[in-house]
């Protein structure tokens, strides 16, 4: 086959142009990326990040350093990030819903704004779940609602944190079902298990994970659109006539002025990480997601609409 010099030259220059274009696009991660986790080491956010770390490094071709900046339920790191992080994609931070919606409404000194960054993606969620112990008198959600109508405030439900995903959705459930329950905040999920096992509370309003981790429990309802893979026998609130879908969403954000290419590059890397982690996290009760773009704005808008009146009301009560 005969190839003229000219054709060869064209081919070569075309190839070079392509390589150049490619390298221009692949420019972004050329330094190490710092991935800030605003919570203590060992928590869910941290463990997930440590899983993502090697996959992200492989995908992006640079080191990804997970660091911790705990305090104030995440607020310390978030306010610091919004004030000082560079919009170059080399500083990324874990963000959680509903924390980043709730804290700025509820605290005057949270130090950050819900919308003052660009959220890359929410990579997983942990739906809320209403859990009672196996020997609880409540066989179904209806049993609990009926008892609550007769004995207002007498049923105590433990959850993780105040005005957290657990607390807010329990308040929503109270409104939907027109009942009065008593919410008791604990710090983290560890003490919650003990509180249920030791009968210090009537039930728990916590995440699906607890339902998969504990032996002697019954999950009365899950706050997700569809049943959760790890708990196929647990009905959703929706199935039982209460329109409550919510929980904690974990994701990652960059400063507001970060370019779209960088955000997209990061999103792809996190999506790949998710695919590989799913096999480990799904059996634990996590729901893998890739919420970004418009869907993300909608989610935040919906949750804000649902939670804002509750939070404002609570603020006035104080």
């Amino acid at each position: 086959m005969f190839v003229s010099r000219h054709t060869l030259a064209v081919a070569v220059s075309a190839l070079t142009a392509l390589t150049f274009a490619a390298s221009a696009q692949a420019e972004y991660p050329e330094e190490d990326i710092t991935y800030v986790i605003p919570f203590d080491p060992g928590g869910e956010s941290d463990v997930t990040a440590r899983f993502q770390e090697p996959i992200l490094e492989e995908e992006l071709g640079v080191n990804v350093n997970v660091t911790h900046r705990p305090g104030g339920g995440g607020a310390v790191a978030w306010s610091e990030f919004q004030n000082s992080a560079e919009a170059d994609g080399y500083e990324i931070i874990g963000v959680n819903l509903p924390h980043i919606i709730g804290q700025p409404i509820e605290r005057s000194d949270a130090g950050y704004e819900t919308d003052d960054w660009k959220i890359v993606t929410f990579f997983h969620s942990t739906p809320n779940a209403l859990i009672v112990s196996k020997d609880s008198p409540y066989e179904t959600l209806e049993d609990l609602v009926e008892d609550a109508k007769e004995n207002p405030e007498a049923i105590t439900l433990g959850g993780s944190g105040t005005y957290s995903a657990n607390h807010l959705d329990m308040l929503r459930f109270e409104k939907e079902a027109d009942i009065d329950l008593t919410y008791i905040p604990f710090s983290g999920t560890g003490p919650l298990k003990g509180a249920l096992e030791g009968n210090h509370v009537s039930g728990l309003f916590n995440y699906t994970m607890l339902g998969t981790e504990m032996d002697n429990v019954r999950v009365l309802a899950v706050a997700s659109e569809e049943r959760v893979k790890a708990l196929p026998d647990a009905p959703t609130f929706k199935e039982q006539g209460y329109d409550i879908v919510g929980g904690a969403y974990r994701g990652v954000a960059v400063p507001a002025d970060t370019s779209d290419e960088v955000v997209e590059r990061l999103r792809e890397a996190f999506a790949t990480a998710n695919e590989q982690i799913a096999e480990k996290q799904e059996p634990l009760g996590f729901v893998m997601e890739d919420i970004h773009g418009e869907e993300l704005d909608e989610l935040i808008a919906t949750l804000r609409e649902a939670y804002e009146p509750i939070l404002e009301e609570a603020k006035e009560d104080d």
Partner: protein
Amino acid sequence: MDMLLQALATLLTFESLITVLLGVTAGLFIGALPGLTASMALAVLLPFTFSMEALQGLIALGAVYMGSIYGGAFTAILINTPGTPSSIATTFDGYPMARQGRAYEALAAATMASVVGGLVGVAFLLVLAPPLARWAVAFGPAEMFWVAMLGLTLVASLSSGSLLKGLLGGCIGMLLSTIGVSPVGGETRFTFGFPPLQGGIELVVALIGLFVIPELLNMAAEGRGALPGVGELRRRDTSIRQVARQVFGKPVNLIRSCLIGQIIAIIPGAGGNVTSLVAYNEARRFSKDPKSFGKGNVEGVVASESSNNVMVAGSMVPLLTLGIPGAPPDAIILGVLLLHGLRPGLDLFTQSGVLTNGFILSMGLAALMLLPVGLLGGRLIHRVVIRTPYYFLLPGIAMVTILGTFALRNSYLDVGIMLMLGTAGYFLRLIGIQAAPIVLGLILGGIAEQGYVQTLMAAVADPVPWLRLLNNTLSKVLALLVLVGAATALVPIWLERSGRLDKVSQEDTP
């Protein structure tokens, strides 16, 4: 039994032995550095364990955990600085011993006590885990409130000299514990509109500030090193055998401390810091010569170090059976278990019994390894601290503490808080308010507040809400213990005041 032998066989491989040895050594050094806690050591190790098999990963974590809790004793004894919060009580007698030239004796005693404590914890975990687990869940909010109150009665016995100054210190600590987001209710308090203060005052930061900085200022003011010079040290060459006789010669103290360690370890929410403080206090209360405590009584070191190492395996009783972390570092081990598909529960002891027993036995092995590693490492670190002239030692320690404080939460504010508390602590010490009651108030203030508020919230529908604090036997017993504790602390003082005023000794604290 078969399972135990099988587990032992998996453990006696070259790979496992090396993992334990390296884990213990690494843990020891991390624990010895103020600011680097056991939880942090485990978190750093976490990514490495992902590539290992489940058992090897757990062995590594267990060994580092064991080593770091023990390592805290080194700095506690040598420079009056608890390397981890679990070693607070070790400073009370360990450092005076070191100042008397008995540092190696204190280190050796701490090592032996830690080994015994570690082994006792493993034995409890191996034999009694399922029945003990039921105990763990008996402690609800009301009970935790009383446990914290019981701990606060310690203030009286820690404040040798003036009860009033001790109480003042305790109050300062409790006030400091209220800064930041409240444990129940979620509102921010005392942040003065300054967002970074939402994070509150971290215990380790206060610990470093209140213990290290005043000591450094003291050393600088007096122009001396941490320990007396080499000449005096010749005398201290007590043999290991003599120390062993001291430690094991009074088995009651050792047994009591181990039991206290185990009981507190299974209570979720109370970690090694509470364990060692309570064990120390009881050792003092039951001693024939309580006045010698705080002045270099080896029993104090033994009580603190044996009880906090019981906690390592002991706190895994509720973890392995119920999935409830008995102490903060356990949360990380729980994460590893879950990621390997191991759900806490009785299955862990039957279906995957070989793995579980292997893990438990490896912690026993780690405890045994503390002996050679600790005695050798101890000699080394001891020599370094003694030989280094103070004008190198002081800036060196200051540097390490500042780095450690920063590394804790990557926070400059924490460094500032640490230095401020340290300076305040120096002057408070000059007027007789010690660091120990302040730290005690800081630790227990939060626990007491949370327990109290949770209890009263749950009782919102009751006619007399506060009766909930006493609504079962356990809470009544604990409340009674608080009364007895307060009485045993106050009555002798009152007697001295009223009748035997002349006998009030001028107790002087450095």
